[in-house]
């Protein structure tokens, strides 16, 4: 029986193929494959590896990503994504460089590290692994409406982040216009190594004191873990202008509250009393320099406007330009200009990329505090941070991506980018003026991706 079944099967197959050939002859066409990417019933998988490296032995990161999209019937899609990050290296602690060697207590309180004279104070205990997973589902409601829902979770040693999101889209003018409204809610749990330090409290240093005194002092500067909640809303319009041009406008509003401080960032207190130490680190009663843990406001409201235009040229090349404006109630405004041009070169493409970023500093950004502002432990301000990411900053990114399409489904791409970031601000006084308070950050990253 099996033998007969087998021969029937192969005969049926032959019939189908012969029929396909006969039909092509009738229509005067060549047979074409009917399955391509985005076809219902397939998983489209994208894998990528990103390697990020800052110069001067600062942050190094490796980030593998795997993303899979299941297309159910062309419009209903499920996307699952897994990202793992490994960060190693050192990041600027916020303290100023000094003409003298400096010693800092590590975040756990169990040790200390030293920075040589003139060197930028980096916290080299910085090391983390993060795993993030997300799932997103999108589907039409009817001809005019579509929705999406998603969830996100990530975990690193000292941080747990969770979020849910939903959006609703309305199509107008034969889908030439799409209006989208979205909402995202997130809760993060921050559990810093050694506990979250009390904002603007003095970093305990164990020099010149007993371990018991140090431990007591350290414990007094600690809070327990803390949470952060975020609400994001987005309103967008996507408009097909003509066959070549697509334009998108988004307005986003984001509100965060809770623990928004970076528990590992500190500020130096600089002696502004005239004398031999003018411009040096203020020395406290215990004979140690004074460093304070940073403190940021416990709420942040951000508004952003985004405009993007994609233009497809007659030869298949694509120009993509976008501009983003962001303003928040911390006093930061930023402008981002991003330009890409994709050259189609047969089966491959080359896409140069340029990005310009300009940011003003936060109201409470201080490269350092003066002894007067420190006011013998009763600081005159409630918030202060020396985190360079909150300072005045300019970033230039140059990069290019090269991709090769094997067929409709498989694409290999490699992307390389180089970032030059410069900070600027208060240049200090006295002996501090001779220190480089704003070293440039140069970074490069390479990404290799393969989708199938």
């Amino acid at each position: 029986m099996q033998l007969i079944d087998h021969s029937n099967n192969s005969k049926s197959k032959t019939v189908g193929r012969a029929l396909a050939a006969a039909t092509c002859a009738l229509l005067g066409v060549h047979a074409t494959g009917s399955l391509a990417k985005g076809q219902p019933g397939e998983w489209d998988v994208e894998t990528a590896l990103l390697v990020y490296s800052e110069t001067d032995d600062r942050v190094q990161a490796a980030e593998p990503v795997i993303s899979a999209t299941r297309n159910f019937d062309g419009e209903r899609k499920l996307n699952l994504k897994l990202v793992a990050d490994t960060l190693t290296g050192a990041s600027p602690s916020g303290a100023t460089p000094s003409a003298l060697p400096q010693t800092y207590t590590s975040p756990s309180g169990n040790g200390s590290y030293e920075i040589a004279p003139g060197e930028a104070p980096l916290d080299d205990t910085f090391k983390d692994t993060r795993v993030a997973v997300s799932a997103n589902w999108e589907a039409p409601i009817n001809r005019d409406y579509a929705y999406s829902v998603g969830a996100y979770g990530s975990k690193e040693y000292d941080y747990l982040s969770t979020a849910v999101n939903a959006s609703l889209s309305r199509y107008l003018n034969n889908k030439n216009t799409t209006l989208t409204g979205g909402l995202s809610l997130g809760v993060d749990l921050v559990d810093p190594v050694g506990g979250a330090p009390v904002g603007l409290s003095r970093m305990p240093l164990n020099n010149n004191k007993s371990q018991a005194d140090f431990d007591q002092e350290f414990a007094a500067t600690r809070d327990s873990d803390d949470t952060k909640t975020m609400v994001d809303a987005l309103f967008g319009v996507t408009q097909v202008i003509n066959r070549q041009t697509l334009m998108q406008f988004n307005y986003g509003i984001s509100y965060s509250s809770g623990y928004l401080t970076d528990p590992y960032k500190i500020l130096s207190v600089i002696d502004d009393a005239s004398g031999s130490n003018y411009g040096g680190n203020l020395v406290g009663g215990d004979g140690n320099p004074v460093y304070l843990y940073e403190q940021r406001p416990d709420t942040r409201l951000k508004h952003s406007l985004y405009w993007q235009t994609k233009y497809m040229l007659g030869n298949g090349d694509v120009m993509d330009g976008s501009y983003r404006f962001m303003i928040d109630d911390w006093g930061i405004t930023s402008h981002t200009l991003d330009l890409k041009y994709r050259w189609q070169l047969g089966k491959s493409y080359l896409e140069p990329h340029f990005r310009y970023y300009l940011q003003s500093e936060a109201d409470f950004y201080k490269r350092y505090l003066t002894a007067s502002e420190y006011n013998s432990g009763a600081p005159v301000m409630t918030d202060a941070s020396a985190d360079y990411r909150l300072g005045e900053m300019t970033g230039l990114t140059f990069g290019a991506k090269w991709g090769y399409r094997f067929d409709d489904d498989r694409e290999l791409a490699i992307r390389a980018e180089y970032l030059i970031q410069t900070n600027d601000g208060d240049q200090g006084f006295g002996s501090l003026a001779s220190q480089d308070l704003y070293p440039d950050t140069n970074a490069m990253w390479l990404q290799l991706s393969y989708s199938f």
Partner: protein
Amino acid sequence: MNTITVSAKDNPAGHPLPQLRGGQLSWQGRFEAMASPCEILLDGVNRRDAEQALAFAARETWRLERTFSRYVSGNPVDRINRGKGEPVTVDDEMALMLDYAAQCHDLSDGRFDITSGVLRRAWRFDGSSHLPEQEETDALLDLVGWDKLSWQRPQLILPEGMEIDFGGIGKEYAVDRVLLDLKQSLPEGSSVLVNFGGDLACSGPRTSGKAWIVGVEDHQKLSGRSGTLSLYCGALATSGDSRRYLLKNGVRYSHILDPRTGWPVPDAPHSVTVAAPTCTLAGMLATFAMLEGAEAEHFLEQQDVQFWVQR
């Protein structure tokens, strides 16, 4: 909505004129032909191109209807059917169609046969319990069989009393023909879908990259969502009509006749829908599956195509 002018010469059957609606770069054109509502969906073309495309589609469809219908006196099919056993010379278009019919007959082991239409004289699928007599169908079988005629391109000799009928190919062929011609004439970057009464084909996804959403009234079970189907590329065609059958003593006689017996194919599905690169191929695979009767699903599983069978 606006009406497209087509000259009376190009509209010999006097169909209502095509209607175009839509705007921006997305259009829907409608007209009637082959006893079906015909629909052309266009993406990424301006109004002028859409009007031209719709006028062209209607003219071409009506031309094909006139050429391949068995009801138009004096057309190529009629000339063949009235040939009285004399050789009839046909043009290239008809010759391709006859070649195709010959191959389909061969590949189906004689089950697909464009001469089987005369069996309709005995079979009226009106939902009643009236079955013809065996003698009646046996007599008609003398007038059925592709192997009884002589086809030597470009000449066909059809024995007197026999008839050919392209009812099982014509509409799907017209869908592909119109789509192929529109694909050539419309500007690059545009996208088009041709839907003649539920047999349809598209040039690819919409210009937005999304699937075409097509209303399909008779086959709600296809997508699990009532009344609509989404199509990225290729074509869909359906064979069968659940309303055309006879019922006697609890046995359902489908309207799919086996030209070798003169009787309905036992256990034929209500309908078969197939997705394939072209509408003609989809339609023929669906017809072959119907002719397989109880083996319809098994046959389709061998073909590496998506299909939906209603029983």
